[in-house]
Structures are given as C-alpha cells and as structure tokens.
C-alpha cells in the first residue's frame, strides 16, 4: 500500500540526494561532458571564495536574529494571549494571518513599505519630523539584511505563537495556583514555571524557525533579487545556490554549496539542543 509513496520518495528524494554527493565532485556546466575534480569544489569554497564566506556570515546573522526575535516575540504574545477569551482569540487570528500569505505577496508588501521614495515607512518618518530615519532600507548595504529579517519575523511570529499557546495550555494550572499562594510575582512564575515547562516547545519553535530562515529565499528574491542586494549583502545559502546554478551554470559547485547549507542547518539545530535541551531533559 505504501508503494506509490515509496517509489516517488526513492526516485525523487533519496536518489537525487545521493546523486548530489556525486555532482559535488564535478566541474560541469550541465551541457558539456562533466569533469571529475574530486574535492576541489569543497576546497575552492573554503579557501578561495569570498562570496561564500560573506554568504555564510549573512546566513548565520540572519538566522540568529530571526530565531532570537521570532522565538521571543512568539513566547511573549503566547503568554499574553494564552487564555481563551474572545478578544484573545480574535488577536490570535489576526497575528496568525500573515502566515497564510505567499512569500511573494509578503515580499511585495514590504518592498513598498521600505521603498526609499514612495514607501510608507519613510513617509511616516518624514511626517513625524524625523527625516533622518528615512533610509534606503533595501538599497543600502548596512540595512538590507536587517530589513528582510524584520519582514521574516512579521511573516511567521503568529504561527510560532500558536505553537507556543498549544504548549503553554498543557502546563498544569495547579502549578500557577500554588505559586500564587506562595506569593510569587508574575516574573518569578514565568522564570520558574513557564520557561522550564515550555522548553520542549521552545526547542521545536527554534528548530522550525531555523529551517524557515534558510528558506527566506523567496523574500530575498522579491525584495532584492537573485544577485542578492547591494554588494551581496542579502546573499544567503539558498540564493547563492540558485545564482551559481542559473547565472554561472556551475552545477557541481552549486551542489557542493547545498551540502554546506544543509550541514550548517543541522549544526545550528544541534547546537540549540545542546544549549537549551540538556538542562531540562529528563
């Protein structure tokens, strides 16, 4: 009964994944005869490619910012909205709303908001008398990556908040009641009950947000483009792979890059588990 799923999975998931390892050892434009270069693609990436290091740095910075802010905001809003009152449910529905939009749509909305000449953000800063805050958000090297990170957090915080609410509602109410009897402040209740009890959820949220941040490809393609912003300041792994594949026609090199991309992703998730998981696992 599992045959159709199994065939598709083997043919178009597992087989390509293995083939990718072989591709990574080739120099190939996809048309002429491929040339076997052993590990040279990997050594080139590591020793002779500034764009690769820039991309790695961007991707780490982007993921770090998005994971920290999105997780923190999702947790804060979940704590605020955990009770099932009418207002809270309405607000949850609103906060979750961006999640259902396509990343192309979200990208276009923020493309407008950030626009240096016509955008609403700069219009706002000019109107309230702070024209020095009116920046070329996506067009300048120092702000482009942060601007996109902000949109990414706007896009998915609501989704992670809902995951947190499901987690928080599992915490036994008696714990809070007992703490209240003991006269514990709200902050004390948060640090000694909510935070440790929600740790499994936090790990899920951080892992998912990490993977999501590697997929910010779509937002970057819309808001900057495939050459990834001014002076490659918004280049992350997925845009780099795409650029190497289509603009440079270096299939083998792109394959080697995807391997680094996945390795980085796995490493980050592992580090999160090491940093937060250990202390609370039974």
């Amino acid at each position: 009964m599992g045959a159709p799923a199994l065939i598709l999975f083997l043919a178009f998931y597992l087989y390509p994944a293995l083939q990718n390892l072989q591709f990574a050892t080739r120099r190939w434009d996809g048309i002429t005869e491929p040339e076997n270069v052993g590990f040279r693609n990997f050594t080139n990436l590591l020793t002779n490619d500034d764009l690769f290091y820039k991309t790695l740095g961007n991707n780490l910075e982007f993921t770090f910012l998005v994971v920290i802010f999105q997780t923190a905001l999702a947790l804060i809003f979940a704590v605020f909205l955990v009770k099932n009152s009418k207002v809270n449910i309405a607000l949850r529905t609103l906060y979750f709303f961006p999640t259902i939009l396509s990343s192309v749509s979200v990208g276009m909305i923020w493309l407008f908001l950030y626009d240096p000449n016509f955008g609403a953000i700069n219009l706002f800063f000019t109107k309230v008398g702070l024209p020095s805050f009116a920046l070329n958000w996506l067009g300048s090297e120092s702000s482009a990556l942060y601007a996109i990170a902000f949109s990414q957090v706007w896009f998915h915080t609501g989704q992670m908040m809902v995951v947190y609410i499901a987690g928080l509602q599992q915490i036994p109410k008696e714990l809070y009641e007992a703490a209240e009897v003991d006269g514990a402040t709200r902050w004390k209740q948060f640090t000694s009950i909510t935070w440790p009890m929600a740790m499994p959820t936090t790990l899920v949220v951080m892992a998912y947000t990490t993977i999501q941040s590697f997929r910010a490809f779509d937002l970057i393609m819309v808001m900057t483009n495939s050459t990834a912003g001014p002076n490659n300041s918004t280049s992350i792994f997925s845009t780099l792979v795409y650029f190497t594949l289509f603009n440079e026609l270096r299939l083998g090199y792109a394959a080697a890059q995807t391997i680094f991309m996945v390795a980085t992703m796995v490493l980050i998730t592992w580090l999160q588990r090491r940093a937060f998981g250990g202390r609370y696992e039974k």
Partner: protein
Amino acid sequence: MIFKSSRIISLTFFAALILIPSLIVVLGSFKTDSEVYNKPLSLPENWNLDNYQRLINESELEISFRNSVVVTLLSVVFTLLFASLASFAIARMITISGKVLATLFALGLAIPAQINLVPIYYIFRDLGLTNSFFGLVIINVTTTLPISIFILTAFFREISRDMYEASEVDGASPLRIYRSIALPLSRPAMGATAIFLFVINWNDLLWPLLLIQESDKKTLPLAMLAYRGEYFVSFSMLFTAVMVASLPMVIMYLMMQRSFIAGLTAGAVKG
C-alpha cells in the same frame, strides 16, 4: 500593573503592524499610484476597479491563476492519497515493511528538500519534466510526503485496535479496512493536512522557479515575480496582483480559522 500596561501596548503595536500594511494593500488596489504614495492609508478618492480591469487585460496573471489552481489541487489530492496509504501501512502492519517505510520517511524529514535543488533540475530536464505541470506535481508531492506521512501516521495509530481487529475477523482486506474504517475516522486529520498542503503548494516559489520558464506554464507566485519586474514602479498594480493571489486563501482562512491554524501548526510541530 507593569504587566497589564506592557501587555496592552505590545499587543496593540503588533496588531497595528499587521493591520496597517494589510489596509494599505486592500485600499491601494483601488487607488492610483500617486494616491498610494502620498496618502497610503486614506480611502480611495473614487472607488473603481480600473486596476483589476487592467490586470486582467494586460497581464497573463489569469492564466497563471488557473495553472496554480490545477497544480495545487492535483498536488494536494495525490499527496493525501499516497501519504494516507503509506501511513496506514506504517500504522497497521507492524511488519518489516512498515518499519522500513517509517524509517525512510523519517529520513526525509531530516534531509531538507533543498539539498536536491541541483540534481532535481538536472533529472527533470533529462526526463522532459521541466515546463510541465506533471513535473511540478511530482516534485510537490514528493517533497511534502514525509511531513504528511508523519502527521497522518500519528492519527492512524490513535484509531483503536478493536476497530481494526473486528473488521479483520470479518475477513475484510487491508484496502477495504483503509477505505471504510481508517479514512472516515481520520477525516479531521486529513482536513488539517489538506489545508497545510494547500497553503504550501499555492504559495511555493522555489520549485516553479527552478523548473518552469515558459510564461504560459507559470504558477501565480512565479508570474508575480515576473510582474514585479515589469511594474516595478507601479505599486497600485502590484497590490492588485497581491489581492488576486491572496483572496482565495484569505476567504478560506476567514471561513475556517480553526482548521487553518490547526493544519498549519501540525506542519510546524514536526519536531
């Protein structure tokens, strides 16, 4: 006191952060460009459908809308069919084959599909599956199988053993048990998974960008990306395109908020 006021301030701020851009887009689709740029939040001077008219006349977004409907529906239906069959096999037949399937698809959860960007491009080109809906459906189904199987297996396991055993005594074949017991009982799970798949497939840009070049085969997100290039200076037209692309999702979301939220978080909590 500090808790209460910081709660109200931050909740209001984030609500505004979502409401204001949404309003700008909705209102902007009825406005001229200069109105959008100078008074993004005011009501349109005169409400008209000129932008929508122009979008239909001048762009090929209508074709890509249809393409997206076809590709999304086929992808969701086949993923649900194949995933539910495989999940049933995993949940019910605790034999070697069930365990092998479970392990394989767990592996699929661990390896992000993006690692396959380069080989998929190459394989699909050689098989003649680029610029084809069939190819796009294949890759959509394949990449969403592991997560769908993960969600559905959990539900199939929850169906009580007695239900299955009673029908086995009656001599029903596995396929019959799947059809007349497992499927009807797992309707909520199938619904949640369907919504999750619907949103993912409808909004996906990565695979169409890799596999589709011909303009009459483009899906909506891909066509919008091209449209961005053409109308870069006209945000009122871009907003109109955003409206057209998002409306089906927004309507469904407003009608079935609960299932939407359940479906999209079931996808997130894959651990």
